[in-house]
């Protein structure tokens, strides 16, 4: 191991060091500002390490493949974690009395995601996934006064543990018949197998796919999503929805990238079916949902369905592979921005007794907290794919990638369900700007004045983060090249 290797691995070292420092500090000091500040500093240092590592040698170890795509997503994860720290600061201050473990777990979750984003081997895939999942169990169950949180965490734990076991068993089967655990060799290892070996290989890949599909909440592995989204604390769900899904999706993207389109026939069919089912089920179930958190859960199922369309397109046509990767990277970024902002608004509006979940509680929010209502509106419009928001550009890229691969059936469903989704997103926005004010929103108007100085400052930090997220959503919608150049450069590793 040389200095160059250490430089490439520096994001991991920085993240792990941050987690350890925050954990040790928690043992002696309970000052919330100190712990959150340490975490934020560590994450900022990690981001600097990502920038430095980008200029160096890319092969770190057999387990980690540090190409530009993985570095891009590690950077995205770190930014998401930073935003979550900003959102949690006020949220935890209002609902909890102990904070250190939360930030330790959050940093460890980001570390797990970063390992996933660069994993090139079953071992690193498994380790990254588990570090991420086990941190998330703790994070979801964190608010002690929220009985739903324990239930959500337990449901998530049981399903995640079962699917981790499936993933592991699948990996073991694939390894047993192919003798390799490197992701880029596994896809082609099935050729020439016969008898029980071919059956075991197929069963193994199916089990691995089930494990990955669960983490992404794709239909038919989506049942946990609404319950966990509803029960978990809003900032954590923002992290789960944005960071954990992005990290797992990169694995899918990176391991499918060497897939030969001609031999990928079955896989393309399976992925297409999953994409159809996720787009339809997610959007249909969200249509009449009265609970905003569950609505966002179903909407995220649909969004992941759109992303699978882009993956199918990247695998199906050799020439369009770059287009598919660009579409996935861009869409994951804007999806993360939009969901962070949406759950961030819920987190800012939460008080010690609970979070506003029912849509009726948002009646009149636009008159009482105009900035928050605007943030939520822009993020929902971006998820719906309205022009002038980043969501439109994202959907345009998915459409372009799909058209390049001639996936017309998927594109028709994609366009129809996107149009359908506008109905439930607009319903939320119209509710917020109704003239009559719900008691919940009415109580909000009086609270800022009654808040202590510390809480007002925390509230301002969260609102500033939300405004930044919204501003970048709008900027990317109007002038996408800012990000696009970076992504296109990163995606060129697959050409």
């Amino acid at each position, binding site marked *: 191991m040389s200095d160059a290797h250490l430089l490439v691995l520096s994001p991991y070292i920085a993240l792990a060091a941050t987690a350890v420092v925050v954990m040790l500090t928690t043992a002696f000091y309970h000052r919330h500002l100190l712990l959150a500040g340490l975490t934020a500093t560590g994450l900022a240092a990690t981001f600097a390490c990502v920038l430095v590592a980008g200029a160096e040698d890319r092969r770190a170890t057999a387990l980690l493949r540090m190409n530009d795509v993985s570095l891009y997503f590690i950077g995205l994860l770190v930014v998401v974690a930073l935003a979550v720290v900003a959102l949690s600061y006020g949220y935890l201050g209002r609902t909890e009395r102990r904070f250190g473990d939360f930030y330790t777990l959050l940093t460890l979750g980001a570390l797990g995601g970063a390992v996933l984003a660069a994993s090139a081997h079953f071992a690193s895939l498994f380790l990254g996934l588990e570090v991420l999942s086990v941190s998330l169990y*703790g994070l979801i169950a964190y608010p002690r006064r929220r009985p739903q949180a324990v239930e959500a965490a337990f449901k998530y734990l049981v399903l995640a543990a079962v699917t981790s076991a499936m993933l592991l068993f699948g990996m073991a089967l694939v390894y047993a018949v192919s003798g390799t655990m490197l992701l880029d060799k596994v896809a082609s290892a099935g050729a020439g197998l016969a008898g029980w070996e071919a059956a075991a290989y197929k069963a193994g890949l199916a089990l691995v796919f089930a494990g990955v599909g669960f983490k992404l909440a794709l239909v038919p592995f989506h049942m946990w999503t609404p319950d966990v989204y509803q029960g978990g604390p809003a900032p954590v769900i923002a992290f789960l929805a944005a960071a954990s899904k992005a990290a797992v999706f990169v694995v899918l993207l990176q391991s499918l990238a060497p897939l030969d389109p001609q031999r990928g026939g079955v896989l393309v069919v399976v992925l297409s079916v999953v994409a159809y089912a996720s787009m339809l089920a997610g959007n249909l179930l969200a249509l009449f949902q009265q609970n905003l958190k569950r609505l966002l859960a179903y909407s995220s199922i649909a969004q992941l369905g759109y992303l699978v369309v882009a993956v199918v397109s990247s695998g199906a046509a050799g020439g369009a592979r770059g287009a598919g990767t660009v579409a996935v990277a861009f869409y994951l970024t804007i999806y993360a921005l939009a969901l962070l902002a949406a759950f961030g608004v819920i987190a800012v509006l939460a008080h010690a007794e609970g979070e506003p979940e029912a849509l009726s509680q948002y009646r009149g929010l636009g008159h009482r907290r105009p900035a928050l209502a605007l943030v939520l509106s822009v993020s929902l419009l971006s998820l719906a794919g309205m022009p002038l928001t980043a969501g439109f550009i994202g959907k345009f890229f998915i459409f372009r990638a799909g058209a390049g691969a001639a996936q017309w059936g998927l594109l028709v469903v994609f366009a129809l369900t996107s149009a359908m989704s506008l109905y439930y997103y607009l319903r939320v926005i119209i509710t917020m700007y109704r003239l009559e004010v719900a008691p919940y929103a009415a109580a909000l108007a009086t609270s800022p004045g009654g808040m202590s100085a510390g809480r007002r400052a925390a509230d301002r930090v969260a609102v500033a983060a939300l405004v930044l997220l919204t501003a970048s959503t709008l900027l990317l919608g109007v002038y996408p090249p800012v990000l696009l150049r970076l992504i296109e450069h990163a995606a060129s590793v697959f050409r």
Partner: protein
Amino acid sequence: MSAVDPVYALGLAGVLFVLGLLGVLVRRNIIFVLASIEIMVNAAGLAFLAAGARWGQADGQVMFVFILAMAAAEVAVGLALALRIRRRFNTLDVDDLRKLKD
């Protein structure tokens, strides 16, 4: 040394895995659900050992050590959650956890 045919070991692992899965689906007590998950995870570990033995590589055993560590971490969190569920809801039956729904 007469080694066991890895197919038998994989078969045993498969049977254990299915038993664990059935346990998760059928048992309603939280502790038994966690124990069934443990059986599934360890079945995967056994499959890794068999696969490693087939290729004469240490990778399978390395994965098994990872799996042991991960199973311990998972069950630690699981039992902590079971304690909190017991204290708050006064039950260990998974069917009683139904606050979250449409």
